[in-house]
C-alpha cells in the first residue's frame, strides 16, 4: 500500500535523456573534427560554445515550459524585441546600458506573465496563446523601430556577445558569452533540481489534474515557466545583439529551434519528462549539426531539410526505445 516506491520506476528518464543528447553531440562534434581538425583546439571549441550560447539559453528556458506541458512560440519575437529595444533605448550611450538591461528584463517578464496568465486563467492552449503574443510582440517591435534597425549599441552592451578574454589559464580564451551561458544553465539547473519547483513542473506536465489534487499550485507553476522562458529569450536577445548587431529578424525561427533542441535532447512534448541536460545537449547537438552542415558547404536551404529529418529520426528513436523499455 505504500505509494512511494512506485514513484521511483517512473523516473529513470533524466539519466537516459542525458546519454542520448550527449551521445548525439559527441558523434556530431567528432564529425566536425574530422572535417576541420582544429575544432579540437580549446580556442575554437570556446568559439563554438560562444556561437551556440543563444540557442542553448533559449532551449533551457523553453524546457521549463515544455516540462509543464506547454510550448512557448513567442521567444523568437521577444529576442527580436530585446535587440531592437536595446538599440533604440541606449542609442549609443554606454552609461545607459545597465538601466536598459533592467528595462529589457522587465519587458521580458511582462510578456512571460501575459503568456502564463492567458494560459493558466483564460485557458487558451499555450500554442495559440504564445502564437498570439508572438504576433503581438513582433508587431510592437517593428512598429516601435519603424520596421528597420535604428539606434546604436555601445561597446559595453555588445561585449556580452563579443568580448573574449585571451590567455586564460588552461583553456586559452574565454568568451564572456560562455560565462553568461554557464551562469544561466547553472541557475536553470538549480531551479529544477535545487528547489521544489522541478518536481512541481514535472508533476503538472505529467498530469495537471492529479498535481492539483496533490496540492501543487498548477497555475503558479505554469506562469513561472513562461516567465523563465521569456527571461531566457531576453538573455538570448542581448547576446545576439552583441554578435550580429541590430536586425529586425534577429530572433526569427529561434522558437522552433529551441523546441527542437529540447526534443532532440530527450524532453517529452506535452510534459512530464526531461531534464536541463535535455535542453543543453539537445541544443549543442542541433548547433553542432548546423556547424557541420556549414563546414560541408551545404546550401543554407538544405540544412532545413536535414534538420527536419534529424528531428523526426530523433523523436522516432526515443519512441522506439521507450516502447522497448515498457
Amino acid at each position: 500500500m505504500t505509494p512511494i516506491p512506485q514513484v521511483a520506476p517512473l523516473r529513470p528518464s533524466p539519466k537516459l535523456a542525458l546519454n542520448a543528447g550527449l551521445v548525439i553531440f559527441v558523434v556530431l562534434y567528432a564529425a566536425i573534427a574530422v572535417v576541420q581538425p582544429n575544432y579540437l583546439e580549446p580556442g575554437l571549441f570556446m568559439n563554438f560554445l560562444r556561437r551556440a550560447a543563444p540557442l542553448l539559453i533559449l532551449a533551457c528556458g523553453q524546457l521549463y515550459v515544455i516540462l509543464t506541458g506547454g510550448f512557448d512560440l513567442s521567444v523568437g519575437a521577444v529576442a527580436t524585441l530585446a535587440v531592437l529595444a536595446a538599440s533604440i533605448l541606449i542609442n549609443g550611450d554606454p552609461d545607459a546600458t545597465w538601466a536598459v538591461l533592467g528595462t529589457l528584463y522587465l519587458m521580458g517578464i511582462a510578456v512571460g506573465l501575459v503568456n502564463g496568465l492567458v494560459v493558466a486563467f483564460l485557458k487558451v492552449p499555450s500554442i495559440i496563446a504564445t502564437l498570439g503574443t508572438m504576433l503581438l510582440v513582433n508587431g510592437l517591435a517593428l512598429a516601435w523601430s519603424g520596421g528597420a534597425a535604428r539606434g546604436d549599441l555601445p561597446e559595453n552592451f555588445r561585449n556580452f556577445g563579443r568580448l573574449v578574454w585571451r590567455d586564460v589559464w588552461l583553456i586559452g580564451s574565454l568568451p564572456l558569452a560562455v560565462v553568461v551561458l554557464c551562469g544561466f544553465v547553472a541557475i536553470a539547473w538549480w531551479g529544477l533540481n535545487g528547489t521544489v519547483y522541478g518536481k512541481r513542473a514535472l508533476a503538472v506536465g505529467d498530469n495537471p489534474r492529479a498535481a492539483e489534487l496533490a496540492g501543487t499550485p498548477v497555475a503558479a507553476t505554469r506562469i513561472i515557466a513562461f516567465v523563465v522562458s521569456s527571461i531566457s529569450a531576453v538573455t538570448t536577445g542581448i547576446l545576439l545583439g552583441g554578435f550580429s548587431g541590430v536586425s529586425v529578424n534577429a530572433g526569427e525561427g529561434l522558437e522552433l529551434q529551441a523546441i527542437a533542441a529540447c526534443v532532440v535532447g530527450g524532453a517529452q512534448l506535452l510534459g512530464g519528462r526531461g531534464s536541463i541536460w535535455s535542453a543543453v545537449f539537445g541544443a549543442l547537438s542541433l548547433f553542432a549539426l548546423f556547424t557541420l552542415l556549414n563546414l560541408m558547404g551545404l546550401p543554407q536551404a538544405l540544412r532545413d531539410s536535414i534538420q527536419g529529418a534529424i528531428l523526426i529520426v530523433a523523436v522516432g528513436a526515443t519512441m522506439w526505445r521507450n516502447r522497448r523499455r515498457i
Partner: protein
Amino acid sequence: MSSNAISMEPASFNHRKGLPIAAVLAILSAGFFVVIALATGESAQLSLQGIVGLLQRMVALGLVAIGQTFVILVGSIDLSVAALISAVAVLASLLMQGDPAMILPAIIACLGLCLAVGLVNGALVAYGGINPLIATLGTGLIIQGVLAASFADLQGAVARQFQVLAYGGMLGIPYSVLLLALLALAAAFILNKTLFGARIYAVGGNPDGARLAGIHTERLVLAAHVIASLFAGAAGLYLAARLQSGTPWIGRDGIYDLESIAVTVIGGTILAGGKGGVAGTLAGVLLFASLDASFNMLGIDAFLKQVLRGGIVIAAVAIHAVRYKGHVA
C-alpha cells in the same frame, strides 16, 4: 480529460454545440466589417463586388483550415501545410509552363504529391507514434529546404486558362469562392452525416475508447492527414492560379500553418480533438478576412495590424476557452 466525457455523446451533439460559436463569430465578423465600411464611408465595400472580394480573401486560408480541422478533430495537428502549399504552387507552374494542355496532368501530379506527403505525415504520427507537432514540423522543414535549394529562381508559370480558377466566375461569383463553398459543404457532410465522420469525432474524443469499440484509429489519423494535405494542395493550386507563378515561399509568407490552426481553434474546435467542426472554422476564417479588410479600410499600418491580430487571436479563443474547468497545456 473532461473531453472524455463529452465524446460519449453522439457526434451530432458536438455539432449542435459548435454551431452557436460559429454563428456568433460569423455575425460579429460581418457586423464589424459593415460598421467599419459605413464609418469610413467605403460603402462600395458593401456592394456585391465588395462582399465577393471579402469572400475571396477567405479562399486560401479557408481551404487550408478545413483540412486542418480534420487533423485537429482526430487530436493531431499539421504544421507542414505551409511548405506543401509552396511545393504545390511551384510544381504547378513548373509542369504547366504556360501550356494549357498540361493543366490536368499538373493538377494530378500536385494532388499526387499531396497524397504522398499526407501518407508520410499520417504514417509517422499514427504508426510511428511520433508527436504530430514534431513529425509535421519535420516534413515541412524537409519540403521547404528542398524547395528553397532547388527552385529559388523559378522559371515557369501556370497556363492562362488555369488562372480562370482565381479570376473567372459565374453569376458574379468567382469560381474560387464556389470551390471553397462546395468543399466546405462536402467536408461538413462527411463530418456530420457519415460513419467516417462519426469515427473521426470518436477517435479525437477518446482514442482508447474508439479502439476498444473496434475502430482502426491509426487508419483514421492517416486519413485525416491525407485530407489535410489534399486541402493544402487545393489552396496551393488556387494561389498559383492567382499569382500566375508559384514561389518557394508563398506558403510560409502567408503563415498558413499557424493561421489555419488559429482559425480552427477560434472556431471552437478544441486542440485535444473530438469536438468542433467546419462551420466554426469558416467563421474563424471570416473573422480574419473581415479584420484584414477593415484594417485596410481604416488605413492601419502593417505593424499595428500584426499587434491587433495577435491580441484578437488570444481574445477570440479565450472567450470560449475561459469557461473550461480543467487545465490546458
